[in-house]
């Protein structure tokens, strides 16, 4: 599955896995929460990357799948007593239904490139405005899960402390990496790469472009909605202005872009750089006494520009070349 890694790359991956498994015993709660956020970012980035990086379809509305998944599982749990392990399937079904609508419009009417991206924004905004004005799910005032105390360990209901959620996030990030690697090596994975490179040539070689694009879209939406279920049960509160905002969609895509679009490790590398960077900036600027609104966003933006200018095809391709972590370019 990771045959493209060199011996050094495989050792680095094993060390990273060991460090992440041991982290709850080594670091304090604050650091652990930052690693958890980075893992969640890596997971969601992996999901988005399957659509953009493998198949070349730019989605700027992934918050919609996240939010739909989060709300579906939370409402089922709170209002109907249906636990998240069942609710996750409803979340996936809801996200796929939404993706089917976007895909049907996009692929049926040959909406490509930036126009497809606009379509995804439009749908995400429709979903956000819908939830904002839907009293059943609390509207703009939000939807709340009963707060779980650290003593209430009900893993079967996704209730537990920070360490429990940390391991769930770690398992999800690892599973998403494995799934992306398996997809990448499969016939469907190669079909997606062919479509990304040249849809017309792909069709001439017998690839059913529309079908493959639907599959990529469904996989990506389903994975993202599972991230939404996690978000709901971890944060215990949902606001359309948070989980369904455009800025949330941008958050999801920054990590894979910075890390390397279309690579397997790009979303992980990107997320593990950007999340701590954001936190360090918040702390650093506070320590310096800078509290002007937008100061963090400005510095963050400048740093992003510097990183992207320095490694235009992503951090992972550059890093793996420098350190000799993989055999050939992914």
């Amino acid at each position: 599955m990771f045959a493209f890694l060199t011996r050094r790359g495989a050792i680095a991956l094993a060390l990273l896995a060991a460090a992440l498994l041991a982290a709850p015993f080594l670091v304090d709660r604050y650091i652990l929460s930052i690693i958890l956020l980075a893992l969640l970012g890596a997971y969601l980035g992996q999901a988005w990357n399957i659509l953009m990086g493998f198949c070349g379809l730019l989605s700027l509305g992934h918050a919609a799948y996240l939010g739909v998944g989060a709300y579906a599982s939370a409402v089922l749990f709170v209002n109907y007593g249906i636990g998240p392990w069942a609710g996750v399937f409803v979340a996936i079904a809801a996200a796929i239904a939404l993706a089917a609508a976007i895909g049907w419009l996009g692929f049926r009417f040959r909406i490509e490139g930036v126009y497809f991206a606009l379509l995804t924004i439009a749908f995400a905004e429709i979903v956000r405005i819908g939830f904002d004005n839907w009293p059943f799910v609390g509207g703009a005032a939000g939807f709340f899960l009963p707060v779980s105390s650290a003593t209430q360990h009900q893993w079967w209901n996704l209730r537990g402390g920070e360490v429990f959620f940390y391991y769930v996030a770690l398992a999800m990030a690892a599973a998403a990496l494995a799934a992306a690697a398996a997809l990448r090596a499969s016939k469907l994975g190669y079909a997606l790469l062919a479509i990304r490179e040249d849809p017309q040539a792909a069709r001439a070689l017998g690839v059913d472009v529309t079908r493959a694009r639907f599959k990529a879209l469904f996989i990506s939406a389903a994975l993202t909605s599972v991230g939404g279920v996690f978000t709901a049960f971890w944060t215990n509160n949902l606001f359309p202005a948070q989980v369904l905002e455009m800025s949330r969609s941008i958050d999801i895509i920054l990590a894979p872009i910075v890390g390397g679009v279309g690579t397997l490790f790009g979303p992980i590398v990107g997320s593990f750089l950007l999340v701590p960077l954001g936190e360090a900036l918040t702390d650093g600027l506070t320590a310096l006494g800078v509290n002007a609104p937008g100061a963090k966003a400005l510095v963050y933006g400048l740093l992003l520009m510097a990183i992207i200018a320095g490694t235009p095809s992503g951090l992972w391709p550059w890093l793996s070349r420098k350190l000799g972590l993989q055999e050939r370019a992914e």
Partner: protein
Amino acid sequence: MSALLEIVDVTKRFRGLTAVDNVSLSVESGEIYAVIGPNGAGKTTLFNLVAGAFAPDDGEIRFEGARIDRKAPEQICAAGIARTFQIVKPFPDLSVSDNVAIGAMLRAPDMARARAQGEDILRKLDLYNKRGQKAGSLTLPDRKRLEVARALATKPKLILLDEVMAGLRPTETDRMVAVLREINRADNLTIVMIEHVMRAVMALAGRVHVLHHGASIAEGKPDEVTRDPKVIESYLGMKAAH
């Protein structure tokens, strides 16, 4: 016996322009058939009609007796017709071996076998040593070869070659001619080629079809067609008459 590919009274118009005007031809199994004519004669449009990129406005196209003129390109490829593009369309960011494996996966049960089949074809087309390179880094002659290799990897019964000799040096042309002849003979692959390089047409084609302004003006054996006054006037020019 019925022909492998039959094109019957096919017409394709683009707005006012009739790109292919009531063309009929039929290609027998195992044949090497060339379509020639000046630029803008409708040759590539004819290929696009056969390959399913466009549907004809009139007429029928049959492959192994079944209508294919309303089918999608991927269905036509699955039925056994592969094509190359005149303006080559490699998957530039993927390796040469990945490019060919994507062609082979149509009929291979898994990627490992698709890759193995692809490598055999790369050897035939002298691209094996470059299999690890990105397709985007190849020279034009190598890209032309890759275009042929990828189409062959789909294991077609009929291959449509659109000017695969263009841009090749004479020695490279001779090599490609030898490769195509070998594939035609060993695998009984039927070849329909659009070609301007007459050296290749004369060496390979059993029959030649000449298009001019979208219409058929001649069909026959290469040496007959090249002596036809209409063909000389419209396409080959006076130089070829001497």
